[in-house]
């Protein structure tokens, strides 16, 4: 069971967090990481345009009573990219932040892992008084939480 890396991309396409969990990978420079994040952001936007638009929910007297959801059911774009050596899973939050997990191809339960990472992000990044939204994440407790979680899993 191997998790290679985690990247978090802000809603404007900037890389705000990246972390490698596995040693012995060929190193990317921080500039490469920024380019990678930017290209993925663009590709994700294109693919979400390509995918067919979701059905507009039919308004009936019953569901008319409910308040409209502030988050429309948008097409999601790339969710998984697989190759012979890695699997890249993307999770986009309702506010547009993207989490990318790079794992081994046969890695099970990436969804649960993603959920846990999102939970750590919500707790230790969003609830941190000294974090500014859309800025690079430098939170000691988030790092520590990820370490503990990946170590336990791996």
């Amino acid at each position, binding site marked *: 069971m191997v998790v290679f890396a985690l990247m978090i991309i802000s809603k404007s396409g900037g890389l705000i967090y990246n972390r490698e969990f596995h040693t012995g990978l060929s190193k990317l420079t921080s500039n490469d990481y920024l380019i990678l994040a930017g290209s993925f952001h663009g590709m994700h936007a294109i693919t979400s345009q390509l995918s067919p638009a979701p059905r507009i929910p039919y308004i009936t007297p019953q569901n008319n009573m409910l308040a409209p959801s502030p988050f429309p059911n948008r097409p999601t774009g790339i969710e998984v990219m697989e190759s012979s050596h890695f699997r890249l899973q993307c999770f986009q939050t309702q506010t547009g932040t993207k989490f990318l997990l790079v794992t081994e191809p046969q890695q099970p339960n990436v969804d649960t892992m993603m959920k846990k990472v999102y939970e750590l992000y919500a*707790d*230790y990044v969003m*609830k*941190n*008084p*000294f*974090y500014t939204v859309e800025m690079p994440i430098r939170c*000691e*407790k*988030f790092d520590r939480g990820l370490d503990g979680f990946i170590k336990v899993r791996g």
Partner: protein
Amino acid sequence: MSGTPNQGPGLRYPSNKKSIYDRNLNRTKNAELSRAAFAYLFIEMIAYAQRGVSNVGDLEQKLNTQGYPIGLRLLDLLLSRSSNPLASIRPTRILPLLQFIAQTLYRHLFGRPADALEKSSTEPGQYMLFDNEPMVSQYVSLPRELSSLNCAAFVAGVIEGVCDGAGFPTEGVTAHSVGEQEQGKDAKAMWPDKTVFLIKFKPEVLEREEILGRGGG
């Protein structure tokens, strides 16, 4: 019927004829609040305290000031809520007051008692209250330029308010992170947020304590 209530001025009664004065004061069970909601409120409190503040000491002082009125009010609220009529008397000696803070106040605020209470061996009138993982700093990661800040200064303000309200003026209650050198690397790794609240009472409190001790002994 129109919606206008058919009542004169004065206290308005809800339909079940019970105003808030008829309800029990003891509603502490199931009265827990969302921790996430507090975390977001605390973010705003810190942002507010950071306005026009140049150094860490001033910031801690501002957080302390925010906590102080809460302590003043909580003292009376908790005493009037206590089910035991003997326990609803204000503490008059230092130890019962500190016990009240470490047990009743801490249970009310954080759902658990404080982790340790010690008397300073070097300075008279100085007491130390330990908290291994303060709830307020649970989600806080400090940036490098503020690494000496301890957000539990807010809790220190609450404690100071309780002490002052009970008639035990202090020379200030301060929150300090317990450093690596004092506890060793392992303890630091286990309780990264371990905090000590230094409570230093004013000389007149100690004087009174001595008189009370003689009279009672």
